[in-house]
């Protein structure tokens, strides 16, 4: 995976996680949350922080799926073609000479 795709996954997820964090923790007090029925031991700051990264992870998973599903049919069908020049016109990997992985 190239850096560009990585940031396309992480950056929008970061923005959404920030918004979701604000909404979620405005409504719920970390002290009222329970983990498998047990009250959380950690400080509010710790729960906010861990919560943010959890939300970021969830949002990033969604972005990653978006990127994954963006591959065209041509790419999926014909990507095992090792020589990039033989790939169909419009395939984003046609020019770069890389493999499909």
């Amino acid at each position, binding site marked *: 995976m190239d850096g*560009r795709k990585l940031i396309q996954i992480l*950056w929008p997820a970061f923005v959404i996680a920030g918004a979701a964090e604000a909404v979620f923790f*405005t*409504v719920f*007090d970390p002290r009222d949350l329970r983990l498998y029925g047990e009250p959380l031991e950690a400080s509010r700051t710790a729960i*906010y922080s861990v919560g943010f990264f959890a939300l970021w992870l969830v949002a990033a998973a969604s972005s990653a799926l978006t990127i994954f599903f963006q591959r065209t049919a041509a790419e999926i069908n014909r990507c095992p073609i090792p020589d990039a020049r033989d790939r169909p016109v419009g395939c984003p990997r046609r020019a770069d000479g890389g493999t499909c992985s």
Partner: protein
Amino acid sequence: MNDVNKAAVPSRKPVEVAEQALYEIRKKIYPRAVTGKFASLRWLFVWLTQIVFYGFPWLVWNDRQAVLFDLAARKFYIFGLVFWPQDIVYLTALLIISAYSLFLFTAVAGRVWCGYACPQTVYTEMFLWIEHRVEGDRTARMRLDKEANGTRKIRLKLTKHALWIALALWTGFTFVGYFTPIKPLFQDVVNFSAGGWATFWILFYGFATYGNAGWMREQVCKYMCPYARFQGVMFDPDTLIITYDTQRGEPRGSRNRSADYRAKGLGDCVDCGICVQVCPTGIDIRDGLQYECIGCGACIDGCNQVMAKMGYPKGLIRYSTENALRTQMNSQQIARRAARPRILVYSGILMAVVVIAMVTLYHRIPVKVDVIRDRANTLRGMDEPVVENVYRLQIMNTDELPRQITIRVSGLEGMTIESEAQPLEIRGATNRVVPVRVKVQRAGVEPGSHRIDFTVEARESAPGSQAEPIVIHEKASFVLH
């Protein structure tokens, strides 16, 4: 800072430094420093916003930090106001106000937010200033980057990055200081005893500042900013934008200052390339309005200096509107077009939300009560003649006056209430959870759920206070099996 004047024959060929940037192959941009009306205006905004940002956490109000978003205590202090999670409607109002202000400014004068007040612009400006002090002007910086690594280059680069990191860390510290009391935090940081999460967020925000303002710069605006993508929908042909006057400028071309350029069929543009060199996003404004343009006005300042040197009138690149350029309007006519329906609607909604928010804030009742019935305790005493329900009353004193609280209950015949000795004292800007037992004789009450009402009366504790007590009614249910 008078770079533009120094460069009589500026080189039009920027050094080709292609770096594999995060988004795409990016040619590194070396913005030339510029002086002029809009550069001064931007510096004014850098000062204003940063005095507020770096200064506010240190202000003291009623013996506490004046502006503190105390996440650990779930209370936001803004001078005399204290906000609780229940006050989220004010946060919503603030967001609506911010959004409509942005719409309004954009519709009137394009991306003024981006050009002058956006943190990305402001910090880039500050980081560029450091870069300029350390590495020199644009040409010097380009030469330095082309040089092989030597002692001088390494020394300059180290100095620049050290200064950048110092500023970034201070920014990160200040940011965290908005969410956790800054004075104890400062002590902790100095003694290397700050908590793990505080340290983490200082470094995180510091790193983001360093990365965004030092390295990413215009890429943040071009690829990461949602506003840059949708600001176009707020534009119309009467929106002020930074434009190049094609009619006046073309055909562009270099010329001798003494030559009669009009006789040679040339326009006013001397094609010096200054407008491109000063542009922080590296575009050519002469190609027309582009989404990369952050509306900073650097090209206007740059071009005006060249025009002055050539003895031509200023404003070849200027703030104007699409309609004004087409029909040759003067500035009064442009100003008159500002009162168009879109602007009036945006202003109307903005004013309405501001007024409503202010009025509700002014009339905000400074005491809030939440009643939570303690379910675990409702079944007590199945066979006893007296039935008891237990409640927890969360009483919030949202402003800074201490108050005395009396709790009464009504709704069922012969109800009695037991709690700690009343009146209860509740300090300013605090909340208190008060457990209350409500009892009623079983005889004469149907089994099931009954609605009851708690009446909470809050009286200012200050002796001699003439203020009317605040009376709050909160309903609850009383369960009898």
